[in-house]
């Protein structure tokens, strides 16, 4: 019985650690895209960005043009990928930043000042 309990604890601890790792292994991406004048217009951009990989937490602020999402770091998304994606969607990329799960941060352009 002790052995079963011990084994169960190890399995539980392992799954907890692996879950914690997977959640920290996502890159947070923030972009400022000019030209997003209406919610329907952003469908094309969302479709294009989704092709970058396994996206989650997608959000858009139409007033500021900010477009945010997280993506698994296994896709190794780069600033060039974001520039190409936004260009193909027919919009203008003004600013982009990628905060890696590892803590590294890469940035293109100046982050716009927002009220928030």
């Amino acid at each position, binding site marked *: 019985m002790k052995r079963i309990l011990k084994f169960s604890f190890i399995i539980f601890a392992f799954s907890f650690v692996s879950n914690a790792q997977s959640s920290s292994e996502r890159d947070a991406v923030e972009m*400022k895209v*000019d*030209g*997003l*004048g*209406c*919610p*329907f*217009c*952003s*469908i*094309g*951009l969302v*479709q*294009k960005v989704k092709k970058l990989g396994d996206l989650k937490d*997608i*959000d*858009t602020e*139409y*007033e*500021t*043009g900010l477009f945010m999402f997280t993506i698994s770091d296994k896709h190794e998304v780069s600033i060039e990928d974001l520039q190409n994606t936004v*260009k*193909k*969607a*027919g*919009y*203008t990329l*003004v600013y982009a930043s990628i905060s890696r799960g590892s803590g590294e941060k890469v940035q293109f352009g100046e982050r*716009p000042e927002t009220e928030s």
Partner: protein
Amino acid sequence: MKLKHLTSILGITLFYQISFAQGPPILTDKPILLGAGNSTVRTLTEIRHTNRGRFINTPFIYHYLPTPNILVGVHVNYLNYLFEFSSGLGNGRNLGDISLIGKYQFLRKDQTGKTFRMAFKTLQTLPTGKKLDIDMISMGTYQSYIGLIAGYESIKFGINQELGYALMPESTKDEIRYKVAFGLPLLKPSFPLRQLSLYFEYQASWFVERRDYLLMYAQGLQYSHGRMTFEMAYQWPLSQELAEPEIRAHSIFLSTRLVF
């Protein structure tokens, strides 16, 4: 005094309407394209009543964007017609005219939360339908259309317009066409997309050779949820000077579109 008040109310209403316009109009074209590699499938069923009879057109519309500023597509009309007995044309159903569409967006000015775009549009219609003389559905003749589309969209202001010329060498129905659309979203902008909008659209046609004209107004309702959009509109003439059989009564439009 009453006229002044009425004008003020109309002005405020119009300003309110155009101040919050967003999304694609139902009957007017737009210069804002949805990104390279994306496709749109749409049906735009029209139930048209004229002095000659009732016509139900159920088109299949497919648009594809090979690049961010070029759109190509095909419109396949399928017609169900019921002519008035006196015309002797009877009733039936058949394939209507097939049109090939091309759009080229040549101007794009983007700013935070707003954009102004212009595009050229061409529509080449093939005479696959019967010669039933039903405008834009089953003319049974070659037609060419070139137009210029301009659109400004922002969180606070939006308007789409189209001006073009339709050439029909085998007919006397050459036409200068102008369309303008305003929208009024009833819900706040949200992500994922969920929007209910009212549309106010005008269409003016001037038939150059016949010196006839037609001015129509359409009241539309549009619901967008994610990649799906459902639309309906009721269109009626505000003013018209047409040959007696062609006089329009009204049209009802029902539409579904999917972006993928």
